[in-house]
């Protein structure tokens, strides 16, 4: 049980804010990319990289490290922002996002950037990758933990449920999956396009321990992570209630901001709010 005090919470919140500012800035510079889903994931990813995970930026391939797989790979900017803030590479590099030759590919490319644990972007595949890593951890009798994040639209991929079945079957209590439950995909609300609801019941029926949390309340996320570590014999799914475009009022809950980058004016407006 890790101690949750005001100082720890404040540090995570500061990092989350810095990450959101990076996300908006780098996407504006890139001129394309996925803003809404990067922002909805920021507070959770900040908790993982600045509180929860046992990692060492100096040794990105350290065998015993915890691993994070961003299965909703289109939210790459949130991962890059976390890695830069955590010291895997310099913050200036964020401005090369999506440019020819950059290690910061439109979707995470493990070959190109230390700290990226899985090459994702094709939805549904990252969670299987995380299951594989968790299986390897068990085989090697390591106590590292594997974290993953899937989108709520991503849950429509059958592969997510194949992976879920396997994770419970192999009793992977070293695996924790966040669902970024922002309610939106590309063509509209998830409940209107192809509803994956009820999400918590589905994971429970698949044999998972299921928890819910406000995905923008750092202290609550830290608490739920604490209790997740105590679960034995099964994987944990944390369904996090989030807001797509979180932190920028004109983006919040707007489906148009799924795959749109802010222009200069919108960036300034966003940065003025992200303080």
């Amino acid at each position, binding site marked *: 049980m890790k101690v949750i005090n005001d100082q720890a919470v404040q540090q995570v919140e500061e990092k989350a804010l810095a990450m959101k500012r990076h996300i908006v800035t780098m996407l504006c510079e890139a001129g394309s*990319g996925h803003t809404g889903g990067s922002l909805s994931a920021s507070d959770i990813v900040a908790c993982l990289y600045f509180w929860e995970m046992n990692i060492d930026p100096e040794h990105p391939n350290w065998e015993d490290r915890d691993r994070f797989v961003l299965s909703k790979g289109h939210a790459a900017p949130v991962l890059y922002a976390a890695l830069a803030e955590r010291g895997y590479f310099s913050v200036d590099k964020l401005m090369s996002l999506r440019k*020819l030759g950059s290690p910061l590919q439109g979707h995470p*490319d493990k070959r190109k950037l230390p700290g990226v644990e899985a090459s994702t972007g*094709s*939805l549904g595949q990252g969670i299987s990758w995380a299951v594989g890593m968790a299986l390897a951890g068990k085989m090697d009798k390591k106590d590292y933990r594997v974290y993953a994040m899937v989108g709520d639209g991503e849950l429509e991929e059958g592969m997510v449920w194949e992976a879920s079945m396997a994770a419970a079957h192999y009793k992977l209590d070293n695996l924790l999956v966040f669902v970024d439950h922002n309610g939106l995909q590309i*063509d509209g609300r998830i409940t209107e*396009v*192809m509803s994956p609801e009820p999400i918590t019941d589905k994971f429970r029926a698949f044999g998972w321990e299921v928890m819910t949390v406000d995905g923008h309340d750092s202290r609550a996320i830290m608490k739920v992570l604490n209790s997740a570590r105590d679960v034995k014999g099964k994987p944990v799914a944390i369904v996090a209630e989030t807001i797509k475009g979180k932190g920028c009022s004109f983006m919040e809950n707007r489906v148009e901001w799924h795959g749109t980058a802010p222009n200069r004016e919108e960036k300034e407006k966003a940065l003025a709010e992200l303080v």
Partner: protein
Amino acid sequence: MEKQATREAYGKALLELGREYQDIVVLDADLSKSTKTAEFAGIFPDRFINAGIAEQNLMGMSAGLAAAGKVVFASTFAVFAAGRAFEQIRNSIAYAELNVKVCATHAGITVGEDGGSHQSVEDVALMRSIPGMCVVVPADGASTRQVLRKLYKRSGPAYLRLGRLAVPNIYDDDLQLEIGRGIELKEGKDATIIGCGIMVEKALQASLILAGEGIMVSVVDMHTIKPLDQELVIRKAKETGAILTVEEHSIIGGLGSAVCEVVSEYCPVPVLRLGIEDQFGQSGSPDELLQHYGLSVDKIAQKVRNLLKIL
């Protein structure tokens, strides 16, 4: 020259066909704004099905709809259609010879900034290998519209490869296109450039540069990769004695391979293939990537010069 992405033309053509024929059903997988099926969805909501982010189910449902008499146009990005749902296309659609037209957009590296995970450079190879599958890669908007009409009339499975990037129109609306018949755009005796998709227009430009140097090339738009217009390939091989293939696809398994298969068996002449070497794409603007991977007018001209040197 006016520009239009083939996916745009596809979206428009679907509307025309949808008005004319009641048995057309369109499916998508949460990408209707990008694949341009959204307008059809708005006008014919009863004949549009969004599968959500579930490409395998998209193809499986398409098979069922076709088996029940519908003519199905199923769309998503090329990586997720030909790649993710390959086996559903093979076993549920093609094996049963069903009337499903897989219309895949965002093919090739001109997807741009999304990067290698989203740039299918192998979809033609995959689709071409399926028995009975018709594979079409139109060069511009006008030919896309024609192709769609012909595919509607032609029973059986088909794969239509469409692009994200706006490209110059090379045809006008009175184009008469036949599936399986290449279009001879230019006559020249020294070599033949056989292209498909967005590379056809670049081949035409290259032919002008070469003409300035006294090299006269034939240019063929081989929009149908399968069934391939073998007769035309053989005739051009005989007439010009050398062939360059150009495509926005891996040099393994696509148009270049298809042409080589015919040429080597029936009338061996030197063939060079210009395409993406055996590698994945990456992020960048479409134009930068075309340059980077050598899919440029200059590179085509250079390859023709190299080809003539081997003769």
